[in-house]
């Protein structure tokens, strides 16, 4: 129910007072309400739930787990019991 999908903002427009945008999910484009992500613009990735963007995705934070995983020594892992 809380399923939310990341997509890229390709266009921003106004619909009778609502800040809306076009968001691309892979090959599919959808109209999405951008009222809750005033900081997001064209080119940004946003997290979308039932037609509303809930957050702009922070790329630095998104990389953090993989940076952590890169620090794990593969040899040590190999020898782990």
């Amino acid at each position, binding site marked *: *129910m809380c399923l939310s999908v990341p997509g890229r903002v390709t266009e921003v427009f106004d619909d009778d007072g609502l800040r809306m945008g076009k968001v691309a999910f892979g090959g599919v484009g959808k109209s999405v309400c951008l009222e809750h992500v005033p900081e997001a613009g064209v080119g940004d990735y946003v997290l979308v*739930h039932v037609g*509303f963007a809930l*957050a702009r995705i922070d790329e630095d934070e998104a990389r953090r787990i993989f940076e952590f995983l890169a620090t*794990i020594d593969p040899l040590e892992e190999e020898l*782990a019991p």
Partner: protein
Amino acid sequence: MKFLDEYRDGEAARKLLAEIERECAGATAPWVIMEVCGGQTHSIVKYGLDERLARHVELVHGPGCPVCVTPLEMIDRAHAIASRPDVTFCTFGDMARVPGSRGDLLAVRAAGGDVRIVYSPLDALAIAEKDPSRKVVFFAIGFETTAPANAMAVWTAKRRGLRNFSALVSHVLVPPAIAAIVGSPSNRAQAFLGPGHVCTVVGTREYVDLVERHRVPIVVTGFEPVDLLAGVLAAVRQLSAGRAEMENQYARVVRPDGAETARRLLGDVFEVCDRKWRGIGTIPMSGYRLREAFRGFDAERIYEVAAIETEESRECIAGQILLGAKKPHDCPAFGTRCTPTSPLGATMVSSEGACAAYFASGRRGRASLPLASAPRGA
């Protein structure tokens, strides 16, 4: 980055599993961790993460499926409204298939009712704007994740002066449910994976309060396998060090203050109220209803359905499953008298319910023995 495939990477998942094993090496019994959100349950069972972790961590499944916990009588009220010839009833797809005591909303449609499945509450609003002769009612369910979208639809309807739009509101809130679980004598959860998308909206401050009040670790966690394993790793690190803190594993979208415009809108449109949870009962101050200023958009008032009350099946143990006290296999009706096509109760009704997730993954019997460690290159 596309923010999806990377988090389903098998190599990253295997590294995390190895880290979790290393972290748990000195523990004498598996840690018990509850994932709160139904979306997390769905992912965990789909990828078999619980079976991979079982030697070190027992994952118990929480109450976090709003479709599941919507009380039976609310579905019966929806049924009553949707059956009216002057009403166009709009609902999210997963809610349409949930049976009330008189069948589901698709049965209303089959009997000639105008029931429509919408992707967004704004779609319901557009239907109302397009055809002023129809009374459009939107079934506004969900957790804090969905509440801002539903609030925006009502708020916009008021601003645009739409007279033929209303909402049947049955919103539920996560923190009171976590508090009820932690305070329950049957609680087994030693740590929680917090609901990532709920926190995207409301932020993490309520979860800091929960940690301080109940001394239990909460790791706000995402929904992909790498997210979930990183959340479990953070939780077992806290447990083995004897710490209880609020940690945010899902910082790429969850900020301490959440989505501030969404939170403001929630406060403008809704007020907190007591709410009945299917399978659990009434939890004080655990839901939203429309504020007085928006009561003209309250379908429960307009169609006078609030008096409809319904009893639940006595055989169903969904309440204990939602509280993490039991697993689907503990129920004698699981997979026999209770299936997704004829569910007895809450946790079998939506694909995110624990019973339905087990059923869909073919776990008809007891879980197989856990793997000692992740096979390499598998």
